[in-house]
């Protein structure tokens, strides 16, 4: 159970993940302790192979730890069956992937509505919520477009709309700006930041310092361990007060 109270949206407690067995076993994550509160935006940085993507997969219930516990809104994912886990992922967790993972034969609005409809929401209500999510990412006018009629940046916005639709409390993003130009990447960060400011817990995996800098807290991974954290001062008035004098 979660020890930090209900406002912890995500909690990883002494989580380890090892791939393979015996002499060829590779420890991807070693005894990770990490919590993210409602309204908090956390970025995870680290070199290739440091365990960033493994961490995200565990946080979203896409993978299970070798040891330790993962809690989403105090629910231990380890105690859930496959169907319950799938339901929790559809309702509470939104994912943004580098390669979008959108369905090419559906329109933007249908892609965004998909997780809601899979969860049993009536089509009309799901479409309404999908439009609302597309509005939040700034492209309501593209609702009826198919994927091959949209730019990479627009597709990524659709993917983000799908991740936030229906008021998800946990947003997980894996290098969501990878294929985008810097202006569009900036727009993606604005949306993620906006979701956190609206009360969601956001976890972003990135190797780009300028994107990590949008987070309240930056966690540094190395060889599967958290080695450091950087916490923003959050008081711009103090920014240059101690410098320069």
């Amino acid at each position: 159970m979660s020890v930090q109270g209900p406002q912890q949206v995500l909690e990883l407690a002494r989580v380890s993940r090892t791939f393979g067995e015996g002499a060829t076993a590779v420890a991807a994550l070693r005894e990770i302790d990490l919590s993210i509160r409602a309204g908090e935006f956390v970025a995870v940085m680290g070199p290739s192979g440091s365990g960033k993507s493994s961490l995200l997969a565990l946080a979203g219930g896409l993978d299970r730890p070798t040891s330790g516990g993962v809690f989403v809104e105090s629910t231990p994912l380890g105690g859930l069956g496959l169907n319950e886990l799938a339901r929790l992922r559809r309702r509470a967790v939104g994912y943004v992937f580098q390669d979008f993972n959108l369905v090419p034969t559906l329109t933007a609005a249908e892609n965004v509505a998909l997780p809601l409809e899979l969860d049993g929401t009536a089509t009309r209500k799901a479409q309404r919520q999908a439009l609302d999510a597309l509005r939040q990412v700034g492209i309501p006018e593209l609702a009826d477009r198919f994927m091959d009629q949209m730019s990479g940046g627009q597709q990524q916005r659709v993917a983000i709309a799908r991740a936030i639709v229906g008021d998800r409390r946990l947003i997980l993003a894996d290098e969501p700006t990878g294929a985008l130009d810097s202006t569009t990447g900036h727009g993606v960060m604005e949306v993620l930041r906006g979701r956190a400011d609206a009360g969601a817990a956001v976890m972003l995996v990135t190797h780009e310092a300028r994107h990590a800098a949008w987070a309240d807290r930056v966690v540094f991974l190395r060889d599967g361990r958290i080695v450091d954290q950087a916490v923003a001062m959050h008081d711009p008035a103090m920014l240059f007060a101690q410098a320069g004098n």
Partner: protein
Amino acid sequence: MSIRHSLLALLQDQPRYGYQLRVEFENRTGSTWPLNIGQVYTTLDRLERDGLVSKDGSDGEGHVVYSITAAGKAEVQNWFAAPVERNNPPRNELAIKLALAVTLPGVDVQAIIQAQRVASIRALQDYTKARRDTAANQRAADTAWLLVLDSLIFQTEAEVRWLDLCEARMLQQAQAAGQASPRKSSNGVTVEEAAPLIADIRR
């Protein structure tokens, strides 16, 4: 930083007295580089000596008002027209620190890099937050401050990327040295092997 040219440029806008120049400079650069009032007056004295500004008398409240001369206007024009000097790069303490660290025995270079990375990312977080808050105000007067913040963001990001590169190169060389060189320092790097890193710093 050219205080001299900055003050001249502000005087081209309109005649001003010393304290006004300081306030105006800090408004336009978001107090990123605070000016002390003594610096302002010393610079005004020199500008007057060089014929680039002249005293305009007092504003009635005892402030000495300065205006720009024709020679001063030409100087401002030249300043804006010429690219910033590059042949004498400003001293970069971080680059110097790492250049020495990689060539001295017993220095944990990776720890230096990581400590700096955390500090740089924290600064980047603060600049990014300040930029977001300022942009949200949507005031035309903030344009100059936003440009300064963007510049700080780009510089800090470049610093972090350079740290990543240093670290990757250190690891590569430590591995190569582990296989080949009998003259390892405690970093696993010899002076000869560190040369490319120092070349990066110089670039």
